[in-house]
């Protein structure tokens, strides 16, 4: 897996020699398709689905479409991306509400898929939209599942119907049936029935689920599936389709690093749309499903849109504008540096954010070596400085540095390095802010300055975060991070000669933008230019 890097890396490799041809021979297509097959299998897409899928990609790639290609890698990735989005459902579907309330939503899935948590999230989400949901505890199997639902309901601030204690006591079909009457009586307009987790091969339990379905006649039956599931997704999905004939799918635990090929398998095998994605343990970590983002994720193309949203959430707009201004006027101080770093930490894991960038696959090594606690240490150093020192690092003479080192529990070398890094970074940022192209050792001038330059402003804290005690290593790390961000393709393992890397880099750099490219770029720039 890791040894092969991500799909875009591999395709770039495959196309290294084709770049000038601008045309694909059947043999080239076969090589490409093999790589795509591998990538999809690594992402846990079911084998049958992979076969069908690669067949279609092959057909399209050999058809007239590619022959007008300027850059074959880009074209193929685009075809793959488009096909993926088509299967994943194109447009996200909404929940179907009943004409006459209550709307009944039934949840079903394997054990540990996250049904109970999801019930709470769904209820909270509906409550926010002025619905009055009722959670029904029909999981009477797992120890204390009823209590869990009650707690979840309390956290979500919604009502719960739990007439039976659970732990094997009570009849879930009866509970589900009675809940509808109860909901009509008490005028709840949405009923969410949480059922016990069950295996697809467990005939008795599937029968029970079917009985619950019959008893409540739901408007939506949501199949809850863990994004980490492997090849078994197909067998399970088929079993549940036969058993409860679900109308939609919910993908959970998407906050992990599973590529989520199961989404593709389930959507493709059952033809049912994925409606929601669940992305964390808090009850608010719940969102409608975005097929385009999922496609990028499966292909490991990075997730620019999500990244932008996260960054937007974390960065205070005004603050960002102020910082940009400071870069321009050369008044960026260590205090600002600190502020930036703290903001960034608010965004969550730095590794995760960097990982979302396309081409980040090539940087996995650096990412693994990168220690997030480094930021904490840097913070400690800056916080051990006086106000005056922070504003004017030139004040930092030997004895001051010794004091700071002692105060922060670091060595003088660390302090020296920080100051040096800060100076380098602010010099570079100044260039970027003025619209120039920074010189990064070993990289040469940057092509695609519009994209790269724009990115640059978001860059400083990230770059500063990435450092190692060893200056040489740090330089390579920084270069890798920058190259990963600005010209995904020119960096990577082997530093391509400046400029020439671009034709190839385009395949990787622009591929993810292949779908909603213009919109994406525009919003990115809008965000960064503010």
């Amino acid at each position, binding site marked *: 897996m890791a040894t092969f890097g991500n799909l875009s890396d591999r395709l770039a490799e495959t196309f290294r020699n084709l770049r000038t041809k601008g045309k694909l021979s059947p043999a080239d297509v076969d090589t490409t398709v093999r790589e795509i097959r591998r990538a999809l299998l*690594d992402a846990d897409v079911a084998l049958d689905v992979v076969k069908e899928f690669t067949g279609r990609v092959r057909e399209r790639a050999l058809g007239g479409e590619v022959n007008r290609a300027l850059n074959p890698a880009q074209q193929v990735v685009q075809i793959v991306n488009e096909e993926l989005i088509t299967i994943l459902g194109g447009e996200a579907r909404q929940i179907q509400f009943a004409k006459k309330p209550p709307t009944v939503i039934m949840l079903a899935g394997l054990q540990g898929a996250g049904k109970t948590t999801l019930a709470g999230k769904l209820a909270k989400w509906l409550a926010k939209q002025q619905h009055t949901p009722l959670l029904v505890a029909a999981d009477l199997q797992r120890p204390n599942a009823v209590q869990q639902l009650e707690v979840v309901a309390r956290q979500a601030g919604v009502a719960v119907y739990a007439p039976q204690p659970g732990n094997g006591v009570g009849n879930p079909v009866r509970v589900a049936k009675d809940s509808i009457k109860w909901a009509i009586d008490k005028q709840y307009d949405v009923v969410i029935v949480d059922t016990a987790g069950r295996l697809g091969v467990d005939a008795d339990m599937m029968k029970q689920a079917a009985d619950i379905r019959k008893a409540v006649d739901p408007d939506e039956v949501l199949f809850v599936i863990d994004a980490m599931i*492997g090849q078994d997704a197909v067998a399970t999905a088929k079993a549940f389709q036969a058993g409860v004939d679900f109308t939609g799918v919910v993908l959970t635990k998407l906050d992990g*690093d599973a590529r989520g090929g199961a989404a593709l398998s389930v959507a493709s095998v059952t033809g049912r749309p994925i409606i929601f994605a669940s992305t964390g343990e808090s009850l608010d970590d719940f969102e409608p499903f975005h097929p385009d983002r999922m496609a990028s994720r499966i292909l490991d193309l990075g997730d620019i849109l999500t990244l932008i949203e996260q960054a937007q959430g974390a960065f205070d707009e005004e603050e960002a504008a102020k910082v940009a201004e400071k870069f321009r006027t050369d008044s960026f101080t260590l205090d600002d540096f600190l502020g930036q770093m703290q903001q960034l930490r608010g965004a969550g894991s730095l590794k995760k954010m960097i990982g979302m960038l396309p081409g980040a696959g090539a940087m996995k090594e650096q990412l693994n070596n990168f220690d997030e606690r480094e930021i904490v240490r840097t913070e400690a150093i800056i916080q051990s400085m006086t106000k005056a020192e922070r504003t004017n690092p030139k004040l930092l003479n030997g004895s001051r540095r010794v004091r700071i080192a002692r105060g922060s529990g670091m060595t003088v070398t660390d302090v020296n390095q920080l100051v040096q890094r800060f100076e380098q970074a602010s010099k570079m940022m100044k260039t970027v802010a003025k619209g120039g192209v920074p010189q990064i050792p070993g990289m040469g001038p940057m092509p695609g300055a519009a994209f790269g330059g724009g990115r640059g402003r978001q860059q400083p804290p990230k770059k500063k975060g990435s450092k190692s005690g060893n200056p040489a290593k740090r330089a390579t790390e920084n270069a890798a991070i920058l190259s990963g961000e600005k010209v995904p393709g020119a960096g990577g393992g082997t530093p391509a000669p400046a400029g020439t890397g671009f034709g190839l880099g385009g395949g990787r750099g622009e591929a993810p933008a292949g779908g909603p490219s213009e919109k994406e770029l525009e919003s990115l720039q809008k965000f960064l230019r503010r």
Partner: protein
Amino acid sequence: MFAKRTIDDETWDDLETALITGDFGIDVTDQIVGDLRAKVARYNTTDPKDLQRMLRETLEERFSTLDSTLKLTERPAIVLVVGVNGVGKTTTIGKFAKFLANYNRTVVVGAADTFRAAAVEQVATWAERAGAHIVRPQQEGQDPASVAFQTVDYAKRNNIEIAIIDTAGRLQTKGGLMDELTKIRRVIEKQAPVAEVLLVLDATTGQNGLLQAEAFIEHAGVTGLVLTKLDGSAKAGFVLAVQERTGIPIKLIGQGEGINDLTGFTPHVFVQNLIG
């Protein structure tokens, strides 16, 4: 696949399909198929039965390279149970407590999953079924490390042989939560060494299982794997890659929701179920 008369291209295709759909992962699949092709050529056989036997041997050999015995000789022997959300940690603990009780060991369960709703009640129910002691958090949302500490303390004071500590499920990508795990371990070790750290893996997991294992090994020092939900249709082939890449053996197997559905890992039986 093995019922045919001779080995032909279709046999190889079927073999590859079977391995991939068994979640072995494309790399391991390529390896095994290449390996078997070489063997078939070397022994000059065309009988699918031979191929089946060779496949079984290859897998058994690869699965049995590591020692899968649990090391619970310390007193108290402390077992920390970790894993991502929803893999069956709590259920495994219930079954494991019962498993140990069957050998006349006294067991205390520490309910250090203070995060998920009703997790404490869930593990308490299991402990009761298994006839084990339980240490509950004193207040809601208590620091899991302190519950773990109290559990070990309880085991020491009451001369209980084995302390099993439940932890909240966490995705391996959550840095802060993984650090919390490191802390739990550190806090326990102030009192006594940790005998086993068991990582619970869900059999339905795909290639992400490897990433899970790597992260948990790094942060919690995993010493053994527990494979759950093997009673379903998933084959869990990914554990071969996990075991080989990380050098951590599979130690226990969970096969159902009943309290006795937990067994030790035997490569022979496991492979038998895998390929029939």
